[in-house]
């Protein structure tokens, strides 16, 4: 059996029960004490998310300042249990409208009890789709949508959706203005060695959509991915367009995507849920365009002084900007005094995380600001060795840039009533875990950690594209073609 969860607990960081729901009798009521005693109050906390205590297994996850604990008494499906928790939290968030934390739970505990009843019955996951649950469990806790209606007629329809086949969309939606928003959000992960070679580099991307469309529309999305393009040219028997094609290592889709059609025709076609959802996720390891190069030089001058020079090059188009760039350069714990010179942005020493933090709010493409800092250390013999040179970390967002080079070629909306739609497409690349290991040079020897990164000129000219002129997008005339 996948998960027959015996109980689910929500605890705060002190271990107080915020909410508990026992689904089965096969675990004792003192399970939460066992969890507190054996996991929360020991060093075990955080060393492993799955623990066995007595005859029961505990799966726990920390989400902001709340622990969610699932207790099972048999050999359960772990992946399923964790996914369930993640989905449940997403569901709660969509109800609370944002944060999921201790306060939110305390303020909404009746609602959570209600939801816990619906999403799991006797330990088996039931329906977790927010779109459907919101039909009959409303945030305001108003009466059942059915009870006010005297006739039983609309009910079968509504409850069919509650449990039924097209779980993600209900019929009869009407919007005055039919709009689709599509965001390609990529996070680029980099691990660069202290010698400047790329150890690991990949992009995990997702396509987020927001649909405000009437009726039951059919959408078709075309990307510049290699397989899709090849398939298309094969079908239309015309040569594939030249230009960059992207090889996706792996793709996963929202349940609304017709996977059979994807496998046969390599097009992404789907009936979207209403509102916001994640259409697909993908992963790319080849041909990643790194938006930034970081060139650190860190010199130790004797026991008590360090010289830190960091140059950051932006290697995307000159017309683009990166926003919210933060570069964290770890320094030893015993740092006493720092002085900076930066050619752009602001820098300071943040003792709480033992880092020099350099912030650049707006970072244009094709520039290379530098930071040079002098760090004075308290001279201690003992602690010197314990500095383990954590990697330099970087945060950024580059709008209208994709590290993978992925582009939307077209997005077609087809609905039987033939209304006009407005489509919006945005791209953004964020830093995932962008780590550059430090090479600390002692004395006057100077070694540049020169990045041996392949660089591509990015020539991307993507702006928000708006297509309002109404005509039915036909197959011969793609919505937009890039």
């Amino acid at each position, binding site marked *: 059996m996948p998960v027959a969860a015996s109980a689910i607990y929500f605890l705060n960081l002190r271990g107080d029960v915020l909410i508990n729901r026992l689904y089965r009798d096969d675990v004792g009521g003192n399970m939460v*004490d066992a969890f507190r005693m054996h996991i929360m109050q020991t060093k075990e906390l955080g060393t492993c998310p799955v623990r066995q205590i007595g005859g029961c297994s505990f799966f726990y996850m920390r989400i902001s300042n709340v622990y969610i604990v699932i207790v099972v008494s048999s050999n359960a499906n772990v992946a399923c249990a964790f996914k369930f928790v993640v989905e449940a939290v997403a569901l709660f968030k969509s109800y609370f409208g944002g944060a999921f934390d201790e306060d939110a739970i305390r303020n909404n505990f009746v609602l959570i009890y209600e939801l816990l009843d619906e999403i799991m019955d006797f330990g088996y996951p039931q329906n977790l789709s927010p779109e459907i649950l919101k039909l009959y469990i409303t945030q305001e806790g108003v009466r059942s949508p059915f009870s006010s209606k005297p006739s039983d007629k609309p009910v079968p329809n509504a409850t069919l959706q509650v449990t039924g086949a097209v779980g993600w969309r209900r019929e009869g939606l009407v919007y005055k203005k039919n709009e689709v928003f599509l965001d390609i959000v990529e996070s680029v992960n980099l691990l660069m060695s202290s010698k400047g070679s790329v*150890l690991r580099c990949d992009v995990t991307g997702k396509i987020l959509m927001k649909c405000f469309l009437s009726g039951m529309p059919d959408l078709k999305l075309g990307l510049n991915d290699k397989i899709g393009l090849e398939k298309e040219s094969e079908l239309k028997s015309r040569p594939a367009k030249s230009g960059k094609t992207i090889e996706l290592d792996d793709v996963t889709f929202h349940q609304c995507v017709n996977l059979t059609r994807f496998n046969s025709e390599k097009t992404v076609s789907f009936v979207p849920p209403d509102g916001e959802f994640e259409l697909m996720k993908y992963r790319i390891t080849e041909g990643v365009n790194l938006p930034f190069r970081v060139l650190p030089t860190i010199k130790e001058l004797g026991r008590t002084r360090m010289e830190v020079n960091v140059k950051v090059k932006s290697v995307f188009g000159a017309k683009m900007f990166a926003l919210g760039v933060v570069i964290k350069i770890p320094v030893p714990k015993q740092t006493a005094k720092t002085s900076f010179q930066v050619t752009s942005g602001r820098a300071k020493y943040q003792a709480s995380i033992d880092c020099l933090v350099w912030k650049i709010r707006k970072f244009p493409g094709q520039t290379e600001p530098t930071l040079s800092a002098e760090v004075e250390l308290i001279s201690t013999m003992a602690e010197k060795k314990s500095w383990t040179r954590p990697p330099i970390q970087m945060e950024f967002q580059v709008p209208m840039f994709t590290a993978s080079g992925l582009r939307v070629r077209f997005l077609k909306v087809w609905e039987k009533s033939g209304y006009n739609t407005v489509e919006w497409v945005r791209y953004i690349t964020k830093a995932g875990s962008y780590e550059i290991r430090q090479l600390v040079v002692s004395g006057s020897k100077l070694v540049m950690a020169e990045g041996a990164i392949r660089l591509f000129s990015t020539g991307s000219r993507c702006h928000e594209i708006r297509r309002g002129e109404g005509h039915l997008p036909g197959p011969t005339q793609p919505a937009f073609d890039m």
Partner: protein
Amino acid sequence: MAPPAQSQRSQSPSQPSGKSEVSDLKLQLRQLAGSRAPGVDDSKRELFKKVISYMTIGIDVSSLFGEMVMCSTTSDIVLKKMCYLYVGNYAKVNPDLALLTINFLQRDCHDQDPMIRGLALRSLCSLRVANLVEYLVGPLGSGLKDSNSYVRMVAVIGVLKLYHISASTCVDADFPSTLKHLMLNDSDTQVVANCLSSLQEIWSAEASTSEEASREREALISKPVIYYLLNRIKEFSEWAQCLVLELVTKYVPSESSEIFDIMNLLEDRLQHANGAVVLATVKVFLQLTLSMTDVHQQVYERIKAPLLTLVSSGSPEQSYAVLSHLHLLVMRAPYVFSSDYKHFYCQYNEPSYVKRLKLEMLTAVANESNTYEIVTELCEYAANVDIPIARESIRAVGKIALQQYDVNAIVDRLLQFLEMEKDYVTAEALVLVKDLLRKYPQWSHDCIAVVGNISSKNVQEPKAKAALIWMLGEYSQDMQDAPYILESLVENWDEEHSAEVRLHLLTAVMKCFFKRPPETQSALGAALAAGVADFHQDVHDRALFYYRILRYNVSVAERVVNPPKQAVSVFADTQSSEIKDRIFDEFNSLSVLYQKPSYMFTDKEHRGPLEFADELGNLSIGEAADNVVSSQRVEENDKDLLLTTAEKEETRAGHSQQASFGIDDLLGLGMPAVPNVPSPPQLKLNTKAALDPSTFQQKWRQLPIALSQELSLSPQAVAALTAPQALLRHMQSHSIHCIASGGQSPNFKFFFFAQKYEESSNYLVECIINTSSGKAQVKVKADDQSTSQAFSTLFESALSKFGTP
């Protein structure tokens, strides 16, 4: 839900006991119960909320049961839900009061609103009161036939709940067969999925007693049922898909074309956004193709990309679950992921449980082509802040070294670790070097050179110390100081808390003795004496065994203790392949995470010691008491044994020249504090000898000079002798005490004395040292002239060690 009595115990004392609040609530509820005024629902809702929140924090609000039930007549669905929740929570402890609720719940089961019907039915089944089951059968029966799928869905799980309260009622009402019918015919997939879960549980439980049930259970994995479910799989919710896929793994297709059909049908599931569905599909693919080797390999290639995506997406907990599965797979097919090793590089901020698994993955995927990169990366982690991870990564380097044939570069790395001067790094590296030498003795020369530089004082961890001692014993011919390091370790025998280290020390001293007898002799004697007196039974037994085998025949002893070794080619795998296969069969479950098959952690008898603290406490006390008793008994037995052997030895003295040095047949006079242990086969000095200066002077005058000789001092000794005190302390550690000393560089004069162990036989020494010439003039006088030569040797070896670390 937690019985209130227990939950209250866990409350902090500052929390209100809730008594006055509860009676307040009672009053207010009563007032509202009969009221039909507008807005009464809102005030009820507030009150109910309070009750529920008290219930959540563990205050016993069961006394409100009656009032809550009275207030439950409402059309407000949220109020109803809160009331159901309350009732479900307390009905079990108030079975009599629960009867009150049956009425309104049954009424609600016939409400025109399907939502209320469903909720009421769910609550009714959740009361969990055995004597109310008769009231369940009717509503459940009609619920299963309800026109609304929501109600049916609830009713199906209700049947399972009923089964758990009263199996016979459930079976007598013939609910299982109704469920079976529903499963195969219902239009709603969630109803079908719930039927499947319920039936699996019910029939599995019944199968042990009823043959029909076990037939039915088999029927669930028959071709028609499986095909029926597979054909509808896309309609199921993601969770139900997991359920169906798990069932499919148990299905045995009759021909290979079926296997391909199923895999083609399910291939797109690998692209599902829900990782649980992907893993469940992976399991189906792996299980179906077990008998087809080549297809099985293709499956590995096919599932690689989705699995790697799962690792890098989602929460760390999810990655952890997936990585555990990857680890299992990589054990079966290491080559599959060997080109993707970079996916297992650790990120700085990852939780340690993910890092640990990634290290295991890196170890497992290492092969000829990627070893260099992987080891380079692992060496980075050795400087990690997170010490356990740093240790793991060093261990990983060692494991890779043991897997590979070309270990040249790795050995260098390991030796670099030894020079990093971090205790834990040194400790881990020592253990690895030891294992490495066992497999590749040809590297001994390089390793020993580095190991020799490590001071045993800097190594504290038992495992590392044991490894160092093992190397000292094994390679004592190549390490100049080996006998002396071992000797100093023997001297600190009492401070060594780990039995493992003491065992290794015994063996190492033995090995060293066979290679360099004169230098090790004294250490061996001390080690055997200390070992025989050891309270740890294994140490004691080993020491006694060595002692006897030495007494019997030294060359036999050498053949036993230090035979020529063959390099270990394969280190024993701790897990049998049978167990591994079982874990593989239980893919996508806890077994994989715990790395043991489910019977080991779900069956009570395999669970091992209970882990609840109080029980554990009792357990350890019991064990400790046992230990005390047994060790006492053993000690007593041993004393008897030892006495008799000591007596026997008298007649067989002098059998072996080297080993029988200084065996004394004299019985101890006094010294009751010292345990009654026979002398080891050589002269042993009393560590706590005492002699007052006047007696010394008197004896010095009386006794003739037994021995006079000139000894050379090593340059280190000369360097160390800056003041008399340094030598005093050193000699004292060899049980040779100083009674007077004086002089200044370069001339020092010392008077030493020593006492034979357990006897009042004294040795007196006059020692004049000239540091500029590096010579020492030694005159020895002894009560017992026959042993003065032995003492002199001892003195000489003690002096020669002066200045060496």
